[in-house]
């Protein structure tokens, strides 16, 4: 980091202040805000804060908490898959009755119902709480006002509510883990009938009820956040900040919020139908079902209907997860390779194209659900077309760093790692997008490998890149670079070690969501591979402990930030004082004079967005 700081040729502090003073926009903010009433005590500053920067940190730390829980769950079920014969009796103190101990042998086994509960909770927690709230919630909150040049979000109050709904969603889900019947265990996609009939399995009762309550709170949180993000980007940009001057982070967060606002309500409609089926005896999703030999009254519904509603959200949701990571990586790669982002407009248009296409591909999750094969063809075509804007982005990232003066900081490494993961996982997506190949691959470990690499690991990498890069903005100190690099290499190698072998398992037809494989002759020769995966998973988890230690240690003991623009970046968040006040800028709001990517222009290493265009100089962003 020291080198990064030294290399930067950021204008001296008073230059920035002079530029803001001279060209900035005076909104008389501080005349109204002397001695802010609502930021004056501990509760209003740290707990019920309405400051977007504090809310961002709340999202991040809550997301990290959930990442640890979700990660630990995966270790337990990986132990079961890798070492089905080993005793898990030592987990009894934590898992209680979900570990049964054989009285004769003393062997502790994981209850199969609980295995399913773990897999389900792992998916739900990571997808929604960590990679949606923890990623988009953190960085949209932190960066939108700072990078568009706004004092705060359009509605700081709704923004605060957004966090607290997320918090309550977490609380309810956490509580469901301790039910005597266990949390919901029917998979993160919550397909009926397991989700629609309280008597269908142990987790389908109270566990599913709490799952629905929790996710409803969660959707409210996403919607409140999204309304704010969209409004802030469209309405509160500072003087001179037209849409073509927005950093790609903001474009990504913006489109993410639009996707969320249009797709989450559809999930809610599915939830309403589920709740009615569960409690009011309707049959939206249920038809001619027998439970325990007993025919139920429910007739006339269709479980496929739920799949349509779920995946109409579900597919945009995976882009809600990946787009913010893409935006972060674009910014981080450009700053740390000291080059303008390659093909800025192509990047914007591919974000928009991905956003649009993500709404018309959902049935690629349902090729094997009995949808009409002719209709499948339509979805095959659009699914494969999504690969085009995705490839454009990959090409542009590579071209951005190509020939750059790359500083291999932890943030930049995770950015490059993201690109690698996105390529690997995107390629397997093209396999799965062909409905004929999907007949073999559907519901196997190939799918597990695909989405963990392209979404799970890649989005985590985007998040790490963002945390290392903007940590000084959040806490005024740097994270430790050595630990960061160990974290990167360990995670990068380890993640491939976990998920690469899964492709082979999947091609051989090993199904996902099975409790154990050693009693199937066809799969028994994979036991060594499963052990290898489990060991790799444990090591990768250990790497994350390094990150967490680094994170919390750096909050208090990290190297202090001494200049306000340590990386020599161009975007507005680096024009604020080191200790960012409420309202972000102590005086006027800076005015924007150029696009965000003038690196290496006219012999200057970087030119901040607030520096006026020289006579006859052309602005790339118009």
């Amino acid at each position, binding site marked *: 980091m020291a080198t990064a700081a030294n290399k930067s040729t950021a204008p001296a502090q008073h230059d920035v202040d002079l530029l803001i003073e001279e060209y900035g926009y005076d909104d008389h903010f501080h005349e109204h805000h002397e001695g802010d009433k609502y930021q004056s005590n501990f509760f209003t500053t740290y707990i019920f804060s309405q400051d977007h920067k504090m809310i961002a940190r709340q999202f991040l730390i809550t997301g990290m908490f959930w990442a640890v829980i979700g990660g630990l769950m995966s270790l337990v079920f990986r132990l079961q898959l890798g070492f089905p014969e080993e005793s898990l009796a030592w987990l009894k103190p934590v898992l209680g009755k979900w570990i049964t101990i054989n009285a004769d042998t003393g062997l502790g086994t994981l209850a199969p119902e609980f295995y399913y509960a773990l897999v389900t909770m792992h998916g739900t927690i990571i997808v929604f709480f960590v990679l949606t709230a923890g990623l988009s919630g953190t960085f949209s909150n932190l960066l939108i006002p700072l990078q568009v040049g706004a004092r705060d979000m359009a509605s700081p109050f709704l923004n605060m509510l957004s966090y607290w709904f997320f918090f309550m969603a977490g609380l309810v889900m956490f509580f469901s883990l301790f039910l005597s019947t266990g949390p919901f265990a029917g998979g993160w996609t919550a397909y009926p009938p397991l989700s629609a009939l309280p008597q269908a399995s142990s987790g389908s009762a109270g566990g599913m009820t709490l799952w629905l309550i929790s996710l409803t709170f969660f959707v409210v949180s996403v919607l409140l956040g999204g309304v704010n993000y969209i409004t802030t980007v469209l309405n509160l940009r500072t003087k001179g900040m037209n849409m073509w001057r927005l950093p790609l982070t903001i474009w990504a967060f913006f489109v993410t919020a639009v996707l969320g*606002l249009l797709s989450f309500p559809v999930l809610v409609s*599915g939830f309403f*139908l589920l709740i009615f089926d569960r409690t009011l005896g309707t049959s939206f999703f249920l038809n001619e079902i027998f439970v325990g030999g007993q025919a139920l009254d429910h007739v006339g519904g269709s479980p496929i209907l739920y799949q349509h*509603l779920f995946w109409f959200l579900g597919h945009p949701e995976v882009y809600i997860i990946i787009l913010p990571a893409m935006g972060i990586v674009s910014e981080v790669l450009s700053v740390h390779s000291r080059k303008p982002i390659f093909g800025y407009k192509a990047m914007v248009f591919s974000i928009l194209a991905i956003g649009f296409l993500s709404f018309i591909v959902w049935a690629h999750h349902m090729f094997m659900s009995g949808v009409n094969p002719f209709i499948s063809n339509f979805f095959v075509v659009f699914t494969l077309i999504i690969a085009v804007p995705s490839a454009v982005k990959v090409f542009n990232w590579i071209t951005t760093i190509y020939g750059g003066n790359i500083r291999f900081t932890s943030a930049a490494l995770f950015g490059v790692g993201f690109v690698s993961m996105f390529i690997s996982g995107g390629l397997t997506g093209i396999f799965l997008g062909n409905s004929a190949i999907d007949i073999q691959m559907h519901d196997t470990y190939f799918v597990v490998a695909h989405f963990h690499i392209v979404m799970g690991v890649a989005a985590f990498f985007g998040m790490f890149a963002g945390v290392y890069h903007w940590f000084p903005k959040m806490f005024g100190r740097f994270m430790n670079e050595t630990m960061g690099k160990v974290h990167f290499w360990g995670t990068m190698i380890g993640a491939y070690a976990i998920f690469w072998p899964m492709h082979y398992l999947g091609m051989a037809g090993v199904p996902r969501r099975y409790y154990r494989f050693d009693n199937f002759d066809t799969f028994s020769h994979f036991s060594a591979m499963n052990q290898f995966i489990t060991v790799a998973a444990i090591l990768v988890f250990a790497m994350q402990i390094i990150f967490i230690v680094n994170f919390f240690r750096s909050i208090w003991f990290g190297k202090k930030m001494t200049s306000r623009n340590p990386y020599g970046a161009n975007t507005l968040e680096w024009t604020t004082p080191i200790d960012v006040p409420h309202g972000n800028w102590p005086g006027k709001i800076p005015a924007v004079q150029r696009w965000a990517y003038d690196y290496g222009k006219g012999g200057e290493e970087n030119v901040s967005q607030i520096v006026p265009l020289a006579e006859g100089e052309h602005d790339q962003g118009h």
Partner: protein
Amino acid sequence: MNTVATTNETVFTGRNKIHPHKFALYVACASIVMLFTAFTSAYIVRQASGNWLEFRLPDLFFVNTGVILLSSLTLQTSYWSFKRDKKEAYRGLLTLSFLLGLTFLVLQYKAWQSMAEIGVMLDGNPSGSFIYLISGVHAAHVLGGIAALFVALTHAFILPVKATPRRTLRFELVLIYWHFVGFLWLYLLGFFVVSAG
């Protein structure tokens, strides 16, 4: 609540053509539209797969359409009166709109009862369940509007009648939302009628 409003008034720089709160409301409406689009799409998909009970929609649905549209009209007129400082008309029409809103809810409930009377039950064939569900969720959104109208009503009678920018904005927010749920009902009823063929 107060601090929030002041915060936003200062955050809002006046360089924008539309107030952020109003814009945020439009965005929220878009999201509600998606909710009902999903319901009605689910309805179409389910209807296409057969075993679909056909029945006559309750007449009250049509009467009620008049009620909610009338309330939109009275609220709009109340808003105009507010802007022109016509205190009596403003208060009277606002109260009337509030009462019409309540009437709408009561009549929707009666309509559900009349459906049950002809044997279309919530837990029967999905064709009926969908009507109950969709009109029910719509009624919940109307209830939200009535709550907002109630707040507007207390303001109208407690605060001095003066069209300050802040109070005009608040009124406009209620007005937009109320028109929105009215037109939403119009769409839903039109959908029910057309899809029943």
